[in-house]
C-alpha cells in the first residue's frame, strides 16, 4: 500500500467527504482502481445464474428461443402478421435478442440501490460499478444470444431462404452502444427514483412489458403504417422502436430505416445516459438514509 505522501504538508488531502457534490463526479481514476471488483461482479452475475442448475448456461439460449417460437405462433401464425421474405422465426429472434439486451440492462440497473442496500450501507466503493457490471454482464449474455441467432441465420441461408444483411451492418457496435446506453441511463434514473418512492418498482414491472409492444418487437413497423397510420407517430418517436427496427434492417435487410431515426435514437441514448449518470451521482451520496 502506498503510504508515501501521508507525511507531507497539510494541504494534500487524498479526498474529502462533503455535503455537496458536483453534478458529474465521474472519477475515472477511482473506477480504474476498482476494476477488479467490476470484473468480479460481472463474473458473479454470470456464474451465479446457473449455479445448481442442470442446464447451466443453456438457459441463456432457451429464453430467447422459446419466446421466438411463441411469438411466431401467436403473432405470425394466429394473428397473421407478415414478415415478408424473412422467416418469421428469425425475424422474431432478431427483435427479441436486441430487446432482451435493452430490457436486461434497464431492469438490472433499476434495482441497483434497493437491491444492494445491504452492501452499500456498509462499504464504500464507486457505486457506478454496480450498473456498469450489469451492463457488461448483459453484453456477454448478448454475445451468447447473438451466436444462436447467427446459428439459425446460417441454417436459414443454407436452406435457401433469401436473406442477407445489408451495408448498415457496420453500424452494429453503435446499435449495441445505443441499446446499452439507453437501458443503463433509464435504469439509473429509475434506480434513483425507487430509493425514495417505491411506486417505480411497480411501474417497471409492467411498464417494460408494455414498452415491448410499442417498440415494434413482435411486428414490423410497416405493419402499423399500413393498418393504423394515425398511431405511427408512437413508433416513430419511440427511440426503442427505431433501434429494434434498425437492428432488423441491418441484419435481415427488412423494415423501415431512416438516418433521422438512427441519429434520433443515438442522441436520445447519449442524453439519457448523462442525465442518468447525474441523477445517480446525486442519489448515491445519501440514498442509504431513504432507501
Amino acid at each position: 500500500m502506498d503510504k508515501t505522501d501521508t507525511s507531507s504538508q497539510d494541504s494534500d488531502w487524498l479526498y474529502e467527504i462533503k455535503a455537496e457534490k458536483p453534478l458529474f463526479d465521474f472519477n475515472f481514476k477511482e473506477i480504474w482502481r476498482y476494476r477488479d471488483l467490476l470484473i468480479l461482479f460481472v463474473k458473479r452475475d454470470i456464474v451465479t445464474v446457473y449455479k445448481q442448475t442442470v442446464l447451466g448456461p443453456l438457459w441463456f439460449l432457451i429464453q430467447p428461443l422459446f419466446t421466438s417460437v411463441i411469438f411466431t405462433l401467436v403473432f405470425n401464425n394466429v394473428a397473421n402478421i407478415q414478415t415478408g421474405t424473412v422467416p418469421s422465426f428469425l425475424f422474431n429472434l432478431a427483435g427479441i435478442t436486441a430487446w432482451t439486451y435493452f430490457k436486461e440492462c434497464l431492469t438490472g440497473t433499476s434495482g441497483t440501490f434497493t437491491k444492494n442496500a445491504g452492501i452499500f450501507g456498509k462499504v464504500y466503493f464507486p457505486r457506478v460499478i454496480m450498473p456498469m457490471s450489469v451492463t457488461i454482464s448483459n453484453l456477454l449474455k448478448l454475445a451468447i444470444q447473438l451466436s444462436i441467432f447467427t446459428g439459425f441465420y446460417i441454417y436459414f441461408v443454407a436452406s435457401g431462404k433469401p436473406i442477407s444483411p445489408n451495408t448498415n451492418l457496420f453500424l452494429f457496435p453503435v446499435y449495441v452502444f445505443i441499446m446499452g446506453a439507453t437501458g443503463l441511463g433509464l435504469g439509473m434514473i429509475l434506480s434513483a427514483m425507487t430509493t425514495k418512492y417505491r411506486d417505480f418498482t411497480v411501474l417497471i414491472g409492467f411498464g417494460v412489458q408494455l414498452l415491448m409492444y410499442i417498440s415494434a418487437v413482435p411486428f414490423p413497423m410497416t405493419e402499423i403504417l399500413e393498418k393504423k397510420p394515425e398511431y405511427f407517430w408512437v413508433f416513430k418517436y419511440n427511440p426503442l422502436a427505431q433501434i429494434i427496427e434498425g437492428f432488423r434492417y441491418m441484419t435481415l435487410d427488412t423494415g423501415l430505416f431512416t438516418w433521422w431515426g438512427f441519429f434520433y435514437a443515438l442522441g436520445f441514448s447519449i442524453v439519457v445516459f448523462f442525465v442518468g449518470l447525474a441523477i445517480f451521482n446525486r442519489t448515491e451520496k445519501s440514498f442509504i438514509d431513504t432507501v
Partner: protein
Amino acid sequence: MKDNIILTAQNISKQYRLGVVGTGTLSHDLNRWWASVRGKDDPYLKVGAENDRSKKAETDYVWALRDINFDVHDGDVLGIIGKNGAGKSTLLKILSRVTSPTTGSIKTKGRIASLLEVGTGFHPELTGRENIYLNGAILGMTKAEIKVKEEEIIDFSGCAMYIDTPVKRYSSGMRVRLAFAVAAHLEPDILVVDEVLAVGDAEFQKKAIGKMKDISGNDGRTVLFVSHNMAAVKSLCTRGIVLENGKIAFEGGTDECVDYYLKMGNEKGAEYQRFFKESEFEGKDFRIYSIGVKAKGKKFGDPILRDDHLEIMVNYYKSNNYDFNISLRFKDEQGNFLFVVSPDFIITDTDIKNIIVLNVPNYFFNQGSFFVDLQITSKKKLINRFEDIINFTVIQEHVKLGGWMGKTVGPLKPRFSWEQYES
C-alpha cells in the same frame, strides 16, 4: 509521527427525517426544490431536534450528529464510545463514505476501509474462495493483493476444509470467521472497526483481538474503534471520544473517556447511593439515613470493576431496646433473586447514629447490573421493604491483550480455588 494529522472532521452534522416516506415527503421535496430554485437555503435545515430518544419528537427532523469536530493523528487508535443511539454508527457511516454528512466535511490523507458488520457482499452461491476475492474487492483490495494473502486468509479463518464449498452451506460462525479473516487482511491507512468483537467464540475473539493489536501496534496503522466493550476499548485504544446525543461530550485519554462514559451512565441509570427522607420513618423506633454501594477505596459513583472489593453501607439509628435487623436482597438485571444476606450479629443498642457495612469480596459478581432490596425486620416480622433501593453496575476488570473479553454466562463469577491430588 504522532503530530501528523491523517484525518480531520469539521462541523460534521447529519440530519434525519423521522416517520415514513409518503406524500408528506413529496411536498417537502417540492418545497426544498422551490427554495433551491430561488437560491435560498434548505428550509428544513433550520429545524431539527436534538438526538434524544427519551423525549417525544416535536419536529419531523432530528440531528443524529451535530457539529462534530475532531482530528486523528497517524498511528492513533481512537475509541469512539457512547450509548446506543448516541450517533456512533452514523459517524462511522459518514467516515466510511456510506452516506454523506448534511453539513461539514471530512478530509483524509489515507484510504479508509471499514469493518462495519463484516461479511457484507458474500454471495451464498459462491464458494468460500470465490467469496474471498469478491469480498476483498468490495473492501477495496485488488486481485493481486488478495492473491498474495489468500492462503493466509484461509488459514486465519480456520475454514480450509470448506473453502471450495458454497458459502450458503456454512454455519453462521464460519461465515463470520471467513469474513473477518478477509477484512483483517486489508491494509488500508485507516481502519474503521465496529463491534467485531461481539461475534465468534472465545478462541476466535482471542485471534481477532490479537490481529487488531497487530494492526494498531506493530503496523502502526490508524484505527477508529467503536465498541461497547470498555475492556476492549481500554486495552486497545490510545485516545477516545465520548458521544452523547449526537455531540462530543468528552475527548481525551482512553481511561478518562471510559470513566466519563461509565459515570454518564450512572447519572441516569445506576443509583449508587440513596438518602431517605425523615418522613419515611416517622413514628418509628428506628431510622435509616442512607444506603450506598461503592468500590473499596473509591468514591460513591466511581465505576466498580470486577477486581474491586465492594462495600454496601447502611447508615441507621435505632432507639434503645428496639430489636431490629436488616437484610439485603440481591437481584440481577432481569429481577431474578440471587441471594439474601443479613448481619450475623445482633445490632447493638446505641443511641447514636451508626453505620453497618457489608463487605463483598472481589471477583464475586460477573459484569452486569445488579439491584438491591433493603428489608427491615423486627422480631422475625417484616417491618419495611424498599425495593430496588440501590442498583449498581459491575464492569470487567482490565484484561490483558489477547484475553477473553466477552461476558460469560450467569450473574456471578466467583473465584474459587482448585486443587489436584493423585488418587
